[in-house]
């Protein structure tokens, strides 16, 4: 149980730790009931390069509902040089995404019901589909795609197991939100 005062609660039920580091919050969307723990770093400032004159709605990081970002994890939009132009690209997290302590996320898309363990590295532009469990210490190579109902482990991460049909129930985080 954490102290009430540690978190700032938003209107939609997000609980953001006062000790977390959120940069460029105008480019970050939280879906509601998301918990961001202490020492998390979310780099909303690394947004897509918009040509001068255009005023596109720039969302760097979109996070769904009931997500849980554990202590000292880092969310950082992926970047690459395309046609000679270096740019960051938006990152999207679905609902019920758990990110373990000390993990670094540079994925392009993470689906719903995804559990990422401790000290993982999710490489640039990787795509993780729904219902996936990523074991502690996994390193997912850049540009990889993890299909649904997979359990991923290793260095680089490979699918080691298929999750059962109940994966969505197993990875649901509603109870976790209530416990904070």
């Amino acid at each position, binding site marked *: 149980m954490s102290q009430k005062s540690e978190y700032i609660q938003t209107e939609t039920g997000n609980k953001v730790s006062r000790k977390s580091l959120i940069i460029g919050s105008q480019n970050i969307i939280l879906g509601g009931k998301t918990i961001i723990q202490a020492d998390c770093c979310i780099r909303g400032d690394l947004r897509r390069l918009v040509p001068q004159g255009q005023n596109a709605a720039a969302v760097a990081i979109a996070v769904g509902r009931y997500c849980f970002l554990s202590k000292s994890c880092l969310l950082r939009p992926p970047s690459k040089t395309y046609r000679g132009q270096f740019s960051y690209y938006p990152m999207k997290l679905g609902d019920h995404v758990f990110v373990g302590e000390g993990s670094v996320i540079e994925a392009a898309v993470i689906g719903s019901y995804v559990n990422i363990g401790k000290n993982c590295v999710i*490489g640039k532009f990787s795509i993780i589909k729904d219902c996936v469990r990523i074991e502690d210490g996994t390193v997912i190579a850049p540009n990889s795609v993890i299909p649904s109902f*997979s359990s991923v482990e290793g260095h680089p991460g490979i699918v080691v197991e298929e999750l059962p049909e109940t994966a969505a129930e197993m990875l649901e985080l509603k109870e976790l939100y209530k416990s904070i």
Partner: protein
Amino acid sequence: MSSFPYIHISCPCHEDRPQTFTIDSARPISPSKSPSKHDFNFLPTDPHTPTKRRTLLGGFTPSVSFDGGNLGLDLDDDEELTDEDDENNFDPRDPRSAFSLFPIENLLYCEDCHQIRCPRCVQEEIVCWYCPSCLFEVPSSTVKSDGNRCTRNCYLCPVCTALLAVIPVNHSSGHSDHPTGPFNLFCSHCHWTTSDLIPPIQLEKPTSISAQLSKLTHSPQDTEFIRLKQHYAQQLGNAQEDFTNSPAALTRLMGLYTGLGSGSGGHGGSRKGRGVKKLEMKEVDRPREVNEEQELEIVERMAVEGLEATTTAKQRLTQPHEPRFLSDLTPTAVLLRTKRSKRCRACRHILVKPESKVQTTRFRIRLVALNYIPSLTIKRLDSTITWNNLTPHKTHRFLLTVTNPLFDPISVSLLTPRRTPGTAFASRVTILCPEFEVGANTDVWDDALMSTKPAAATPSGVSTPPVAGSFASFSKDPKMSTVYEQKMNYTSVVIEVVPPEIPDTRETRIRDERLLEIPIYVRVEFEAEVDRDDEEGGGGKPSHSGASGGAVQRERVEYSYWCVVGVGRVGDPVEGVVASEPNTPVRTPVGTPVKAPRTPAAMRTPLRQVRS
């Protein structure tokens, strides 16, 4: 096994073999009679009695008399009693058990057999093939003709198995709008590229990589495989022509095999019939040639380049030409994955049917055990307990929670052998309130009710007086032997475990004696509407039959299963905590019926029984 605590449920399939020969030899139990009735003869038959009984339990009268009368409480009897227990109880240490224990999430439930189905007792059928990388569906005809690998652009690094990316060889050309070739396949994990190969592979186009690569990396093994495949496909075609239509098919088939038994005898064209000249290719019989010069060359190269340049067994075996050197590895195409539906092996009904679209995670039919049988969870009551280091001789209290997924209230009996079976170092286990009711699940999730924290627990006004409060205050409270906490669709009771002192010898380590697993027999009884059975195959949950018109008949249903609670590991003895009392907890017998039922008998009948 997973980290502590875990709860695994035993699928009845593990008793499939033994029950064929133990039924008659053992205690006679008439099949018509409910085994649980027999074994739990102390259980009330009146559905309302459990509530009554719980109040009685406060005075300990019925159970004690039962225990004392039938089984005795003396330590002298204990040995005998343990023996008997071993025979009757589910033994989690039995090698056979290992195959049938699954977490409830992995289990399915057949509505027709009324049985739990584990991954071992379902049959799988492939719904569709897809590439796990590009997530494109591959038609089964393509799988048959081109093999089970992605035929698009998905390739894996042969060194580290990460996905390869296509990049232009000349980086400086990145400034132009359309990078021009040649292209490399590049692994962004270990930075291997196809230019590391000898000779380097470079692609002209960034698309249709499979077509380009198959031209560039064609080993003699591939050619041989294709020839073999063609040959046998032809054989198969001939054989089908011959044997399916001809009336003398069987004789000819038999003659074919007996005649060919001695090998080359079949090669002559003397036998009548068209396609049976030879079954095997001539090359198959030929001994594999080893080119001595080539081998020497390899040895020399190893001497020069060192072991770092050679492949690991895993890298070598994933390639058809089994290369010895890293520079001979070629990119491997991504293996396809499948979506599969699952059928019950006994009645062939479909238990799981995923939607055929690759990217969806929904199911058309999904009969998972989680929606049918109550699930157990275990928590520490005393937060000072460390799962991996349980103190011997100390009474550890855990909270066992039974959650009801059904839309009918259920009454639950939990039974456990008083001493954990299958080991010389048995722990004492007591479930303080083994019989209780669990409320019905509701369609509408009342978040407000669910979110009340255990600390603030107030009796929800049902039949029982749950005890709330700090641990210290109620540790002496006799009410502890009642239900600890009761909420909407779950009930928690206290389980006490006294682990023994286990010496740290080689033998105990091999047998992993310190692992403390408690088998618990869960028996569930409830009243269900009869028309429930008509809704089979509807998928999803055993639905709340709201639209059940007409006469609603109620029937009593009971079922039972064994589960194993992995509580933790027994630690080293702690100074000051010694086996002072007779190893029995103070209130031992309250609810722990020493006699749990014979497993085969209990499992012989369907999990769910309907009593008139």
